[in-house]
C-alpha cells in the first residue's frame, strides 16, 4: 500500500494503583513490608513538615527564596527508594523527600537556602548531585553517567528528575536521545505538576501527555498518578530493574499538581484560580497514603503523632545547628568563595583573595584556602 499509517512498535502506558479515595487496586498492589510502608510514610511526612517549616523560616527572613516541594513527596520518595546508595540520584529542586531520604542533612539543606555553597556538598556514602538550578541541564549529566555505567560495567543505575516545563529545553531532548542511543541505564522521572512558574502545560506543549515523547526515542514510557506513591514505586521499580539488566532508559511521567506558589517569591493568583488548586488538594499524596496504611493497619494516629513529635525535634535541632554554623568558619568566612574553584589556587585568584581580605580587614595567613590536597588528590 503506497499510503498507509506507520505502526509504532512501542506503546506507552498509564498506571494508577492507589486512587484519591485511598482505594487500592489489589492486582497491581506491590508487596511491600509493613515496616517499609510505615517508613515511607515517615519520610513523606518528614519532607512535608520540613517544607512547611522552610516556608516559615523564609517568611521570617531566616532563609532566602525557595521552591516548595509540598505535594511532590510521592514522586520523589516513591522513586528514590528503588535506588541503592551508590546508584546516582540526579535531582532538579523539588525532590526534598529524596534529598532527605538519600542522607542529605537538614542542617545542610538549611545552609543551602541560607545562601551558602556548603549546603550543596553531597553527603558521603551516596552518589548524589545537588540541586540543579538551570532547567533540564542535569538530564545530560544523568545520561552521561548512564553511559559511564555501561562503559565501566558496574550495573549502577541513574535516576534523574525534571519538571513539565523542562521538557521544552533542548537539553531534555538531547538527554533522552543520548540515553536511548546508548541504552544507558537512566530513569527519567518527570514531575508533571502542570505548571512552569505561570505557564500551564497546555502552553508548554501541544500534546496530551508528556509520556508520548518516549515514542520519539523508542523508549519505554509510563505515565502514573504522581500522587499515588504505590504507582510511582512500581513504575520506577520496573524501570530500575530493566535499566540494571541492560534494558536501557525509561521515561516515567508522574502527574501531580504544584500545590504551592512556584517559589516563595511567586503569586499564583495572577495566573490560576484558587478553585483549581482546591480541587487538587483532595488528591494530594499524603492523605491517601495515610488512609491506605490505616486500612491496612500499618499506621494509626498515635504513630503519626509520635512521628510528628520526633520530626519537630529534629527540625528544631537542625535549625539551631545551621544558624550556629553560619557564625563560624567556613561559613562565616567570605574568603571561602575562593576555596574550591580549582584543585589548586592560581596566582590571579591568590591575588584577588588577598585583595578581598585587605578590603575586609582580614588576615589571609590565618585563613588558609581550603581547596587542599585532599580534593586535588580526589580529582587526580
Amino acid at each position, binding site marked *: 500500500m503506497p499510503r498507509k499509517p506507520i505502526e509504532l512498535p512501542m506503546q506507552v502506558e498509564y498506571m494508577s494503583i492507589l486512587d484519591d479515595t485511598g482505594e487500592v487496586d489489589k492486582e497491581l498492589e506491590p508487596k511491600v513490608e509493613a515496616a517499609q510502608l510505615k517508613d515511607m510514610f515517615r519520610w513523606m511526612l518528614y519532607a512535608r513538615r520540613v517544607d512547611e517549616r522552610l516556608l516559615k523560616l523564609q517568611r521570617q527572613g531566616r532563609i*532566602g*527564596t525557595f521552591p516548595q516541594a509540598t505535594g511532590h513527596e510521592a514522586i520523589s520518595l516513591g522513586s528514590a527508594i528503588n535506588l541503592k546508595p551508590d546508584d546516582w540520584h540526579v535531582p532538579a529542586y523539588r525532590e526534598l523527600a529524596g534529598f532527605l531520604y538519600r542522607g542529605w542533612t537538614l542542617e545542610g539543606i538549611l545552609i*543551602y537556602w*541560607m*545562601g*551558602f*555553597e556548603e549546603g*550543596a556538598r553531597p553527603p558521603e556514602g551516596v552518589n548524589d548531585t545537588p540541586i540543579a*538550578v*538551570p*532547567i533540564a541541564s542535569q538530564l545530560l549529566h544523568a545520561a552521561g553517567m548512564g553511559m559511564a555505567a555501561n562503559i565501566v560495567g558496574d550495573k549502577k543505575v541513574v535516576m534523574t528528575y525534571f519538571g513539565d*516545563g*523542562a521538557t*521544552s*529545553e*533542548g*537539553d531534555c531532548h538531547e538527554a533522552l536521545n543520548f540515553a536511548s542511543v546508548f541504552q544507558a541505564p537512566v530513569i527519567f522521572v518527570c514531575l508533571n505538576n502542570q505548571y*512552569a*512558574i*505561570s*505557564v500551564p502545560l497546555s*502552553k*508548554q*506543549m501541544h500534546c496530551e501527555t508528556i509520556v508520548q515523547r518516549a515514542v520519539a526515542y523508542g523508549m519505554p514510557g509510563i505515565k502514573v498518578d504522581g500522587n499515588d506513591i504505590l504507582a510511582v514505586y512500581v513504575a520506577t521499580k520496573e524501570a530500575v530493574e530493566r535499566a540494571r539488566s541492560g534494558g536501557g532508559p525509561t521515561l516515567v511521567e508522574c502527574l501531580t499538581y504544584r500545590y504551592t506558589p512556584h517559589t516563595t*517569591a*511567586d503569586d499564583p493568583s*495572577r*495566573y490560576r484560580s484558587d478553585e483549581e488548586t482546591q480541587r487538587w488538594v483532595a488528591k494530594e499524596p499524603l492523605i491517601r497514603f495515610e488512609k491506605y496504611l490505616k486500612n491496612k493497619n500499618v499506621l494509626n494516629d498515635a504513630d503519626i503523632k509520635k512521628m510528628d513529635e520526633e520530626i519537630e525535634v529534629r527540625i528544631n535541632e537542625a535549625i539551631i545547628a545551621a544558624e550556629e554554623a*553560619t557564625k563560624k568558619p567556613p*561559613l562565616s568566612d*567570605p574568603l*571561602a*568563595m*575562593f576555596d574550591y*574553584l580549582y584543585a589548586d589556587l592560581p596566582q*590571579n*585568584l591568590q591575588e*584577588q*583573595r588577598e*585583595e*578581598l581580605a*585587605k*578590603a*575586609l580587614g582580614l588576615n589571609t595567613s590565618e585563613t588558609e584556602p581550603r581547596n587542599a590536597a585532599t580534593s586535588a588528590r580526589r580529582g587526580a
Partner: protein
Amino acid sequence: MPEMNMAKAINLALHEAMDRDSRVIVMGEDIGPDEGVFRVTEGLWKKHGEKRVIDTPLAESGIVGAAIGMALYGLRPVAEIQFAGFEYYAFHQIEMHAGRYRNRTRGKLTVPMVLRCPSGGGIRAIEHHSESREAIYAHSPGLKVVIPSGPRSARALLHAAIQDPDPVIYYEPKALYRLFKENVPETIETLPIGRAQVIQEGSEITLISYGATVRAMIDAAEILEEEDGVKAEMIDLLSIAPLDTETILNSVRKTGRCVVIHEGPRTCGIGSEVVARINEGALLYLEAPIKRVTGYDVPIPYFAREKAYLPDGDKVVSAAREVLSF
C-alpha cells in the same frame, strides 16, 4: 511624569513602544498573565493580548531563535530571558545569527531585535541568578550591548534599542529595579547607543562604571569629596558595545588617573578593554596604573557571600586612594 523606579520605567518604555509600533512584540517566559517575574511586563498582556505578548515554552534558544525569525520577518521582537545566567542556553543563536545576518547577507536580512535580561547580583538569589557577563557579548561582533543605571537611562536606552536596526542586548541590573526613583521626561527620550555620559566632572581622577555599580561609583565619589577633598570625574558608560572610547580618553587625558568598576569577572572583562583602550590612546597621560574594581574570577557566590564579592563604595574608595597616592 511622576517619579518612578527602574522597573516601572522599563515597563513604561515597553508600553510606549508597543503603543507606537504594532511591529513591536514582547516574548519570554512568564511575561504574559504573570507579568514577568520582576513585573516588568505589567499590563502588556492585558492591553495587547497573547498575540503580541507571548508566553513561550521554557527554552531560551527557542526564544532567541524564534525572535530572530520574527525580526527577519519584519517584526521588532523584544525578547526576555528570565535571568542573564540562562542566556548561555541561547548563546549560539545570539552569536551565530542575531549578530551576523546583516553581515552574512550583505545588508539584505537584518535582525532588529532586543534581548532584555535582568542581570547582576544584589537580590539574595540562588546560583545562576546573579550573572554579569556582558563582556562575552562585547567580544561578539555584530551585537550592541547597553546597560542602564537608573530609571531615566533605562527608558531612554530601551527606546533606542527597540528603534535600532541591529540586535541589542539590553541588560537590566536587577538590583536597581526598585532601588530608587527618578523623574523621567514627559516625552519619549532616547539615548544614543555608543555614547557614555560624564555624570560628574572632576580633574584628579576618573571613575568609570555602568549598570548597578554606578551606585558604588557615586558612593565612592561622595566619600572622596568629603574625606579627601577630591572631586572625581565620573563616567557612566551606558553602552558596553560599542564602547565610547572618546569620552573615556578625554577624561583620562585630563585626570591621568582612573579606576574602572564593574561586577562581572575581571579577566577579559569590560575593565580590561577600557584599560587597553586607555593604554592605546592616553598612555602618556597616565600618572598611575589604572585599577580595576570588579567581580573576582570566581562564580558570583550564593547570596550569603555575595556582598563580599560585589564592588562597593569602600572598595572603590580604597582603589581610588591607591591610584591617587601612587
